[in-house]
């Protein structure tokens, strides 16, 4: 009965009455399509921001891992210098009359090692500054900055005042397009070259190329000893028409349609200490001295020359023998000491006519660290000198003049890995 009614009613419809429904369906489909497209755009937008944070954090941690590897090599070198100099010191002391020379050689070794330590500390400060700079660089590079490059027409107009490119000869156009592509023409005046540079590249390119994301006045140059703040933050803004914060010098990025703000947080230096194997070696010091002792005749009346004259020197060596670099709590200072990068991407609302799509601010944060892995031998990678043998055994061989034609240090134990530990 009901079915019949329906067919009866349908039979009463006039032609064209379906159109309003079709329009409604079309609008709905269009809206859904727009939402899908814009959600897709938003997805890309968020992915860019997330990638930027990850890339920045990893770049920062990689810089630190390279520093730690370098400092491990330095540590080995210091240990090698110490071992070789210790032979000289002990041999000089064994003659008894050479004790002043032995003390002088010990002082020279101590000075040399502390100066190397100082340089490593200064490099460590630079490493953290450099890590922050790398993090900023990689974050900006991966933030999906889509600033339009000035067009060839804009380039000709702004640099050369040419308003009608069609009037140019093919060879002239070829010349200008080459300059536009290269972004420079050394044959031109300084002001013209600056204009070429400005109108052939985006402000963003020049922002990156000149490392303007690194505020040298506020955070210092990247050089040994300079400490950058724990938190550094840099921002770049641009409009769809090419106007940008780099060329306008406008730090108020809210006035631009788009902006990317990168904030990097991390430590300022590594707390290095001195590896002191004196205590480790002190048990054998007396044996080594007795092995080479050469007492001058005029001390023949002394009951125990070693105890009286050499023990104080050995005590000095045993209490402080600067033989490399180390970090007291390596896990705390590497694994638990990450570089954290926060990327904020702002895009003004997009008016698509039918629907004003809201982007707003999208933020992502990533932390990455560098860590010393534990190898198959159960040894945690470290910056401490890594001799292939026990240090006392090794020194005994060196002291006896054994030919040490094999490698001294296992440098692979200074390798540090890098990984992202958190993302938000």
């Amino acid at each position: 009965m009901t079915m019949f009614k329906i067919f009866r009613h349908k039979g009463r419809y006039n032609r064209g009455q379906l159109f309003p429904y079709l329009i409604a369906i079309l609008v709905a489909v269009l809206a859904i399509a727009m939402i899908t497209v814009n959600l897709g755009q938003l997805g890309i937008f968020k992915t860019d921001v997330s990638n930027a944070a990850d890339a920045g954090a990893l770049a920062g941690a990689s810089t630190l891992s390279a520093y730690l590897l370098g400092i491990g090599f330095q540590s080995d070198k210091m240990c090698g210098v110490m071992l070789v100099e210790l032979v000289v010191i002990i041999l000089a002391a064994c003659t008894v009359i050479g004790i002043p020379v032995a003390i002088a050689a010990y002082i020279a070794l101590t000075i040399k090692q502390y100066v190397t330590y100082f340089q490593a500390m200064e490099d460590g400060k630079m490493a953290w500054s450099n890590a922050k700079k790398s993090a900023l660089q990689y974050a900006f590079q991966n933030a999906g900055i889509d600033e339009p490059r000035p067009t060839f027409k804009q380039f000709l107009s702004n640099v050369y005042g040419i308003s009608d490119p069609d009037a140019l000869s093919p060879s002239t156009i070829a010349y200008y397009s080459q300059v536009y592509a290269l972004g420079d023409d050394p044959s031109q005046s300084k002001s013209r070259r600056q204009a070429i540079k400005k109108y052939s590249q985006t402000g963003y390119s020049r922002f990156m190329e000149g490392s303007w994301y690194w505020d040298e006045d506020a955070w210092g140059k990247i050089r040994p000893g300079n400490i950058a703040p724990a938190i550094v933050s840099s921002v770049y803004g641009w409009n769809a028409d090419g106007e940008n914060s780099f060329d306008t010098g406008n730090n108020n990025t809210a006035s631009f349609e788009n902006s990317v703000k990168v904030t990097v947080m991390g430590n300022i230096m590594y707390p290095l200490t001195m590896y002191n194997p004196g205590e480790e070696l002190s048990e054998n010091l007396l044996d080594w001295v007795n092995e080479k002792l050469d007492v001058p005749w005029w001390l023949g009346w002394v009951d125990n020359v070693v105890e009286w004259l050499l023990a104080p020197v050995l005590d000095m060596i045993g209490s402080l023998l600067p033989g490399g670099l180390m970090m007291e709590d390596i896990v705390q200072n590497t694994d638990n000491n990450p570089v954290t990068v926060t990327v904020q991407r702002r895009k003004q609302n997009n008016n698509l006519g039918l629907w004003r799509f809201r982007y707003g601010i999208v933020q992502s944060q990533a932390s990455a660290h560098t860590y010393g892995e534990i190898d198959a031998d159960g040894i945690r990678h470290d910056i401490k000198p890594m001799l292939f043998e026990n240090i006392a055994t090794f020194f005994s061989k060196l002291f006896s003049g054994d030919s040490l034609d094999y490698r001294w240090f296992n440098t692979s134990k200074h390798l540090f890995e890098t990984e992202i530990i958190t993302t938000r």
Partner: protein
Amino acid sequence: MRFKFRFIFGLIILTVSLLVYPASAENDLNFDLPVPAGSRLLDSKQLNIGDRQIDTSLFNSQMPSASAVEFYLDFFGRNDFEKILDKTYADSGKRLLRFKKDSLVITVSITEKGGDTEIVTAKYLQGPNELSPEETRPSLKDSIFSFPESDVEGSDIPGLPRPSPSVRVMSVKTGKILSAMYTTPLDVSSVVDFYRAHMPDHNWQFRGEIGAADAAQAYMKASGKDSLGLKSPLSGGEDLEQVVKDSYVLNFASGSESAEIIIFPNFSSRKLGSIVQVSYSQQGQ
């Protein structure tokens, strides 16, 4: 009457002199210590350790070592010396005898060497409440701890100047590094100026200068310690911690060659000037 008085006075003086003589003899380093017959004096040296003078002599004797020991035991026994040490060293076979009478301490070391006997004697004075030299902490001011007064064996490093005046106290090749050490009466800043001025004459380019005070400061700050932990082994010298802090390291390069100059105050006494260690190395060597 007058003659009588003079005679009595003379007798008193003679008696007092005779009574005092044996005691004064054992309080005097001029005590004449005999040596076994046929012994030959090879060398003698006067040492100054603390405030004490020690006279040492080296003899060579044809007498068997056991007979030499008997000779001394007999001599000191007859002269009322107390034997305070009698020790034989297993490794060298050396016999060390030490005798004391009043303040005079005499040590005799007898060792058989290649069929002959080597005898070393040492005499010093030790008052009743004084410590023996071996019980006294050695001092940098002791004569046994003086730097060489003329260049030791070896050579200077070619192309690396040395301050004038200076004495080469060490020359060594350790691994791939050539090093030489000099003492000079010039102070640290004069030596720094010398190298900065003269290294370019030898085609060295200045690469950098670091004062160890900065390094020490950085270490103490990072480690939370109030010193580097340097322990002076001998008494009487400068504070080693301060010696290190007052030092400078200069670095120079010339192509693949590099030179490092370490300059620090003389730790025996700053008044004696400074000590310089120069090192040379070549990359890829």
